[in-house]
């Protein structure tokens, strides 16, 4: 996929290979969401093109999805919105993302984490070649964030799709991505997580560099271990 635009975004040239997890990081207003919207076809670039291989379907998990309370919508019906799918497919996917007990519930009654998993399940049900997620863990607490990213990594392997996501969870992202793009109106730097976190552009943008991000991660990891010792619920 290729796109070269201007104004909010300029000189973007990005391609996503099969089965690759690509993460876009960048400060607020750096055009992350705009880039995603151009890629999924919700916005036409003022200049440049997006080429999508034939038959490449995109599963999209939006940043925010406000379901108007006037619309009744069960989790089951939401999953079926993926298209004409077998009941068993929906059932299996619900089991996979652990919302099977909620199929009869209204979407508006789900918790933040359940809601995000329901969004993910629908995106996966269309058997996407590319899964696009826009800050999928916004508003989730730390354990929920970690388990959400683990889930994404796991289903990537099962379904065999590439993943493109925007994220603010730097420490988690640095661990699970194959390719990181640091965006600030243009591509500041890109490459494997280690390359990007060592890049001076990245360190200038986020204040703390690779050490900071890793230290933050380590610190939290230690913190969780402390808790695990006392209440014996070691989450890993």
């Amino acid at each position, binding site marked *: 996929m290729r796109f070269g635009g201007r104004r909010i975004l300029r000189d973007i040239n990005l391609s996503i290979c099969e089965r690759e997890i690509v993460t876009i990081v960048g400060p607020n207003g750096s055009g992350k969401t705009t880039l995603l919207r151009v890629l999924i*076809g919700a916005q036409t670039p003022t200049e440049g093109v997006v080429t999508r291989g034939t038959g490449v379907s995109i599963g999209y998990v939006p940043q925010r999805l406000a379901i108007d309370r006037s619309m009744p919508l069960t989790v089951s019906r939401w999953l079926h919105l993926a298209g004409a799918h077998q009941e068993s497919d929906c059932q299996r996917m619900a089991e996979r993302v652990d919302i099977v007990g909620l199929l009869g519930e209204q979407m508006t009654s789900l918790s933040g984490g359940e809601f995000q998993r329901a969004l993910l399940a629908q995106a996966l049900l269309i058997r996407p070649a590319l899964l696009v997620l826009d800050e999928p863990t916004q508003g989730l607490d730390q354990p929920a964030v970690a388990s959400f990213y683990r889930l994404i990594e796991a289903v990537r392997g099962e379904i065999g799709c590439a993943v493109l996501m925007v994220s603010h969870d730097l420490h988690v992202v640095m661990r699970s991505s194959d390719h990181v793009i640091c965006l600030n109106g243009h591509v500041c730097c890109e490459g494997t997580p280690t390359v990007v976190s060592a890049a001076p552009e990245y360190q200038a943008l986020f204040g703390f560099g690779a050490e900071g991000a890793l230290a933050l991660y380590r610190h939290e990891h230690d913190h969780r271990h402390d808790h695990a010792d006392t209440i014996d619920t070691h989450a890993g």
Partner: protein
Amino acid sequence: MLDDFLIRAALAGIGLALAAGPLGCFVVWRRMAYFGDATAHAAILGVALSLAFSLSLFVGVLVAALAMSLGVLALAGRIYTMDTLLGVAAHGALAIGLVAVSFLPGVRVDLMAYLFGDILAVSQMDLAVIWIGAIVVLILLRLRWQALLLVTLNTDLAAARGYDARREQLILTLALAVLVAVAIKIVGALLITAMLIIPAAAARSMSRTPESMAVIAAIVGLCSIISGLSASFYWNTPTGPTMIVAAIVLFLLASLWSVVNRGR
């Protein structure tokens, strides 16, 4: 059998209710109540058009309703918000329509019939137009149901799946204009939105999926039409408003039912 004016009235009302139920759900979900109202008000301008150029009422109203809604859609968000533009267009169309009708030479128009409907005067020809219009609306909704739901939920999500939000909006606009054009004879310009919103709102508390809400809304509309028609016959009240009162009663009962259920 169709000679009997009461039966024609009932059939006309049933046709309207069947289409207005599902379409009304989208009006409720997308918060288009005011948009629906404005489209309906434009119908009076359509009445003036059809009288001035001796067009059929259906064609005149359809043209006026479409022109108004497309105009508002095209201009919305530039300087004024949709809300303000609708306010200008709705009352503008209504007032200009009323003034224009008064200029027409040699025409004495029963405006009340256009504002509040005259279902008892529905002819066999009207009945055919109403049912064709209702079926067109239902087919449009059926064909685009999935796309319309996705666009209503989230336009980006719909775009990722290849659905164009603007195109789906146009389809809803078209369906709304057709519905207004067939409904003006039955409930009149001022009460069309009521037939869209009240049954859908009543159906909300009784449904768990969008589809069941659409079906229940159609049934609620149907009951309102039939009971309103009977009530107006026995108590000699104006038919259009009586049908809306019946719909309101059903809405209140449904709300009461949901409150009682929630209390359990």
